[in-house]
């Protein structure tokens, strides 16, 4: 049985890198006593795969991993047992069952939504909350992307599905964006902000942004007319 697990990552845990989060979950699954399936071979490993790696320093409300289990009582049961095995900073949000032919988490990812905050003392000097719309409305947004050998100019506009300034729960202005997160076209939120600031003659400093991934999406529409739904919406509670 294939399960999709959605979790949030916040607080001190944002400093734990992707590979270590995987190791963390391998151990957590043992502590929680989940009846996970193992691969064959001389050194069997848990059947587990993650959606989209999250960079160190970012928090997230929508991380996903798929696991294969031999048996499981219910969504609630798995969620509760896992949550008991968590440390502060990782929380299991949902557990859903996937159909046998469902695409794995990593391959399904097409987009991700981010909230971007400017850290105190790092805000741009221009009126960014009002100027962001004009920036997004341009027909193209050109950035220099470094490859191994050279720098190429590319248009990231088609990879930005939405970009706007909003007010968060605490009444602070933040930037919200939905961007391509597929393995071939992944856009880092910092790249968008960097282009925005460059347009206004400012440079983005290394530690200026506080970024939260709000959710990770898959496309159930077509390439031209995408319909983005969260990765756990393809599964069912059981």
């Amino acid at each position: 049985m294939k399960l999709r697990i959605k979790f949030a990552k916040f607080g001190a845990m944002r400093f734990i890198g992707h590979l270590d989060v995987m190791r963390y979950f391998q151990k957590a699954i043992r502590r929680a006593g989940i009846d996970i399936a193992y691969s064959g071979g001389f050194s069997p490993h848990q059947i587990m795969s993650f959606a989209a790696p999250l960079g160190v320093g970012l928090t997230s409300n929508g991380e996903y991993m798929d696991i294969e289990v031999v048996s499981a009582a219910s969504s609630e049961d798995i969620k509760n047992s896992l949550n008991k095995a968590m440390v502060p900073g990782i929380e299991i949000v949902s557990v859903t069952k996937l159909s046998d032919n469902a695409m794995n988490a990593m391959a399904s990812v097409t987009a991700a939504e981010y909230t971007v905050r400017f850290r105190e003392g790092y805000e741009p000097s221009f009126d960014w909350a009002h100027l962001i719309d004009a920036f997004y409305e341009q027909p193209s947004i050109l950035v220099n992307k470094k490859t191994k050998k050279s720098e190429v100019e590319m248009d990231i506009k088609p990879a930005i599905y939405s970009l706007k300034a909003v007010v968060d729960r605490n009444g602070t202005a933040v930037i919200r964006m939905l961007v391509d997160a597929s393995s071939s076209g992944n856009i880092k939120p910092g790249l968008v902000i960097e282009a925005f600031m460059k347009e206004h003659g400012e440079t983005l400093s290394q530690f200026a942004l506080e970024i939260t991934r709000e959710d990770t999406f898959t496309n159930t529409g077509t390439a031209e007319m995408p319909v983005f739904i969260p990765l756990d919406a393809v599964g069912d509670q059981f």
Partner: protein
Amino acid sequence: MNKLALKDEILLQVEKPARYIGNEVNAVVKDKSAVAVRMAMCFPDIYEIGMSHLGIQILYDMLNSFEDVWCERVYSPWIDLDKIMREEHIPLFALESQEPVKDMDFLGITIQYEMCYTNILQILDLSQIPLLAKDRTWEHPIVIGGGPCTYNPEPIADFFDMFYIGEGETRYRELIDLYKASKKKNESRTDFLRKAAKLPGIYVPMFYEVLYNEDGTILEMRPTEEGIPKVIRKEIEMKVSDTYYPMKPVVPFIKVTQDRVVLEIQRGCIRGCRFCQAGQLYKPVRERDVDVLKDYAIKMLKSTGHEEISLSSLSSSDYSKLSELIDFLIEECGKNYINISLPSLRIDAFSLDVMSKVQDIRKSSLTFAPEAGSQRLRDVINKGLTEEVILKGAAMAFESGWTRVKLYFMLGLPTETEEDIRGIGDLSNKIAATFFETVPKEERKNGKVQIVASTSFFIPKPFTPFQWAKMNTKEEFIEKAYLTRNSIKEQLNQKSIKYNWHEADMSVMEGVFARGDRRVAEVILKAYEKGCLFDAWSEYFRNDLWLQTFDECGVNIDFYTTRERSLDEVFPWDFIDCGVTKDFLKREWGKAMAGEVSPNCRMQCLGCGAGIFGGGVCYEAKN
């Protein structure tokens, strides 16, 4: 969740920020207003190494089991963070609370190897605690040292308020109660230290003075006050099956050296290898009950989620219930896809059988530690491993499919000759030849056998029969390493043999610290101030700075390393009683010089002195 001590900008700049955030599974967080005593336990090296140390985990578990105590962990910040903390005057903090170490009541530092001495100073310095004990007040934590190096604490005595000599399970409760009472009564720090000095196992350097002879050797070390003990006997936990053991060890996020459940099956070693300090310090052997161990294994695997379990002891093959324990683990772990790792097993039919069950033979290698190249020299060091046994073990292993062999030797052992060194090449060659003899051509995977011979340089350690031995000079060491290399190159099968050797400069410094006295402290302090740090890391070891500092302080390296010591010389560590007597060590030194071997504790008691602790192997029926 606690606020982190370091701001994001710093954590995002340094390598592996997970080293500094705490928050791990099973880390203990208490309400600080509800505890009376706060303690930081430190391993003065990076997180990955410190977190792999069982001793701290045991103490952490024990101290946190006391309701009135909160014990946290602290490790050496790596070079990158060290620099930032100095520049920005950020005080070193404990991982759990993320609060400054300087605000704790105690700072405990475990001292596992001599080359961490400058890291001790780093910990104090970054914590903003005065480096010298004499400059501290009640404003500062009580700094306690523990661990094997404290069996000669003199080179670092100036930096510690006290040392706890021996195993930590026994006296912390009393010490903490003494501290609480002193605080309550508003006594001075010195008064507290004076009382602590009277507790068994506690050595408070400030109450002792050392008088020297004209030739620089020690005339006498004596207490400066009435009532301070002249001799400190090590503390020892005799009820090893009924004491503290961490059922919920802390599980790191990042990969650390010992990323597994560790089951300490026994303490001490029955074998009296004459170069080995641990073998003498931890006498007598005390085995843990096998049923207790089975129970621990299950609980610890469950509470950590680790995918591997390892047995720990100085010589696992000597544990009397080994096969019962391993059978149980194979059965239990097999059900849950848990790996078993079995270090320090003697190679024989039994261990090969077990190893073939628990590891991938193709990937694992076989380890022998003959320590010396000839039988003559192995007799001198009392290493009861013969060439016949090695070759037989190797042949059996090759037949079962192993193709990789690791061999460990020491260079610079007492009485060593060129012949002994050439023996390293010969023995390596014979092992390779054994492979070609036992494995027919068509069955040789990749066609070959890989033998890696490694040598380290022998460093005489306190409380060993070799504590009187002359250490080699750096030049002698290097010459011997070349000789070893050439002896390997001359061999018929030299293509199958790889040779590694340890740095000579570092060994010389380790030799000074191991048998040093209080006069060495000044050198350590000055070298630290000049920038020596992480000396155990060869890429950071600054021999030039060390030599310069010894020179400036007028401290002669040879006095501590290559000097001939007379049998009646007073050693800096003579005031410590580790059970094993100096008379016994002298007898063993004499036997070594005569090339005579000694039986192990199970064959025959040698009357080493450790019988005074009233238990363990000393009271088992002898064969």
